């Protein structure tokens, strides 16, 4: 492989990995933006999404109207709805009663929800890896010198589309406007006649649905599921959200893709390699935070309390 081929291939690898990070990071960022909560359970929502989509696919026999792709799309929509509702339920039961409590209490609750979720899945699945069979195969096409499988192409397109839809939703709709308003000031929004609790629930629905979509994509792409699969990606996605500027939607996407690219290229660079790639990417991220503590797209904000 020539230098140029390697470069393009790693660029593509980084973009694909980064879009996974970005999708999960969005959920962290949205929830933090609106209620200043680090939702630790978010990574487990990602994992639950993977398992629920597998259950749905198995229920349909992997296809819908005899078509594998249609089956996957149907399963993804159903998964996003179910897991979105799960997110709303978690928010209603575990977080809403704590909104007026000190920040630390609700943080601990989030940790508890995370443990409940992954332990429940561990008990249900027996702690074993589950194969995720879709029958999509490795067919694909050459894009320049980079070989792209159909699965990879669709995953990139799908995650970009989801991010775009979310961006439009936040910037162009009344609900999005309400979300942005609540991020600034709960009480004023309430005075303006906005149902704050409803909008917070909607935020959890959207964030959880996106994480579920990412979880399902991970299942389809990597071919296996495990109850602890959310852990590593959770840490990385959270990092991505902070780097991009937590609470800022485009920042989460940017942070995710940046982290994905750093990891890919870190693996290829001599003397760094796979052993040191995390050290490499996180060192650069620390540097970014030193010079821009609010993240890449973050703005200085004054304390509002």
């Amino acid at each position, binding site marked *: 492989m020539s230098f140029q081929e390697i470069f393009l291939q790693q660029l593509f690898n980084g973009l*694909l990995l980064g879009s996974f990070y970005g999708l999960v990071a969005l959920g962290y960022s949205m929830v933090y933006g609106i209620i200043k909560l680090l939702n630790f359970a978010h990574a487990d929502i990602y994992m639950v999404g993977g398992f629920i989509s597998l259950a749905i696919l198995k229920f349909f026999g992997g296809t819908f109207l005899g078509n594998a792709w249609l089956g996957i799309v149907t399963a993804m929509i159903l998964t996003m709805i179910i897991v979105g509702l799960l997110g709303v339920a978690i928010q209603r039961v575990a977080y809403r009663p704590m909104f007026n409590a000190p920040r630390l209490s609700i943080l601990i609750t989030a940790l508890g929800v995370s443990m409940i979720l992954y332990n429940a899945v561990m008990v249900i699945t027996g702690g074993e890896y589950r194969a995720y069979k879709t029958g999509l195969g490795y067919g694909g096409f050459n894009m320049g010198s980079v*070989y792209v499988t159909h699965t990879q192409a669709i995953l990139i397109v799908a995650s970009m589309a989801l991010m775009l839809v979310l961006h439009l939703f936040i910037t162009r709709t009344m609900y999005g406007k309400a979300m942005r308003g609540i991020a600034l000031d709960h009480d004023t929004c309430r005075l303006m006649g906005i149902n704050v609790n409803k909008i917070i629930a909607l935020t959890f629905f959207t964030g959880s649905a996106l994480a579920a979509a990412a979880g399902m994509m*991970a299942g389809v792409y990597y*071919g*296996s599921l495990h109850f602890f699969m959310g852990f590593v990606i959770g840490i990385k996605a959270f990092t991505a959200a902070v780097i991009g500027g937590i609470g800022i939607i485009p920042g989460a996407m940017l942070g995710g893709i940046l982290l994905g690219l750093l990891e890919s*290229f870190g693996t*290829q660079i001599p003397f760094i390699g*796979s*052993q040191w790639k995390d050290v490499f990417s996180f060192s650069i991220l620390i540097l970014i935070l030193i010079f821009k503590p609010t993240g890449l797209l973050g703005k200085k904000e004054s304390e509002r309390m």
Partner: protein
Amino acid sequence: MIKKSWVLVIVILLLSVALVACGSKPPATQPPVTPAPGTEGPAFDGELLIGIMVPTTGSEATYGKDMENAINLAVEEINAKGGLLGKKVVTTTGDDGCDPQMASAAASKLVSSDVVAVVGGYCSGATLPTLKIYADAKIPMVVPAANSTKIAEENQGWAFQVNSPGYHQAEKATQWFATLGHTKVALVHQGDGFSEDLANLTKANWEDKGNQVVAYEVVNKGEQDYSALVTKIKSSGAEVVYWTAYHADGALLIMQLRQGGYTGDIVVGDGSSSDQLLEIAGQAGEGVYCTSPPIVDFLPAASSFIQNYTAKWKQSPGPYSGLSYDSANLLFSAIEKANSVDGDAIRAILVDTKDFPTLSGNITFTPELTLVNSNFIMLKGENGKWVLAE
């Protein structure tokens, strides 16, 4: 009412039969310990407790259960023959979870429940910290699976490794690379004691033979995306990739290697010899080689063991079931010969083991308490199943 009266009649009948049976026997031959109702078999003079230390939770739980089942089968068989030293053999299991901290806790638990000896140790990383715990308590330990050379180095004279050590496997692997006609090898491990050890040994062995290791890589446990690594391996010109860690992540790597267009050979180490690797990897698993410990399915001596195991546990034996069964039997024979439950006495007998016949060949220990002869075999994935490659 009719039902009740029938029950009464049956009870009376049973009672009278029991009375007649008792009456016809002279009281002097009554066994000292009455067997529990419903169980038949020889009578025992107390119990002899054997500890089992395997992972029964976590990602390696499948292997742990397979080992526990095999040991309990050996126990059932020895009890059917009258137990050990007249005592009934019973077992208690400590879950090491393939984790050093959990393993230390499990070992302390076994020591404090006064086990005579221990059979166990699947993950080398988890087995290492327990060596001292057992040695301090003078409890001999037969290790069926864990085979890191670090165990031999840190052994305090109480752990007996029944699985061939890592360098036997590295040797088998490099022989196979040569058989396939390759000179450029990529090694991938997971940064834990076991897989890094095997990768290092293979690297040294391969380079000693005058060949080239073109990529030496590591992946983080729990990470799912190896695409960057795949690109690096492809660009290194490797002709064969040797994965030295466990099956769940191995399946991911195999799939992504094939998805990324890598067409060379793939060999995996014994931590990946589970059928689950082929199940998860699907079509990408076809033609993958595996340096494996002696899996009973391929051992002619093991057919009756497979039958008994399948009959008892309603599933086929796992990759380490045979060695676990061998370990238990080796230990039983040593306790019998020592004619004592004293740790020192049992250890002395185990040290002198010479050509002890097992399913996977004869066991003789080196002064480091590892096997003299390699027991590794080479497997190949075909139609979703491992078959013997040679």
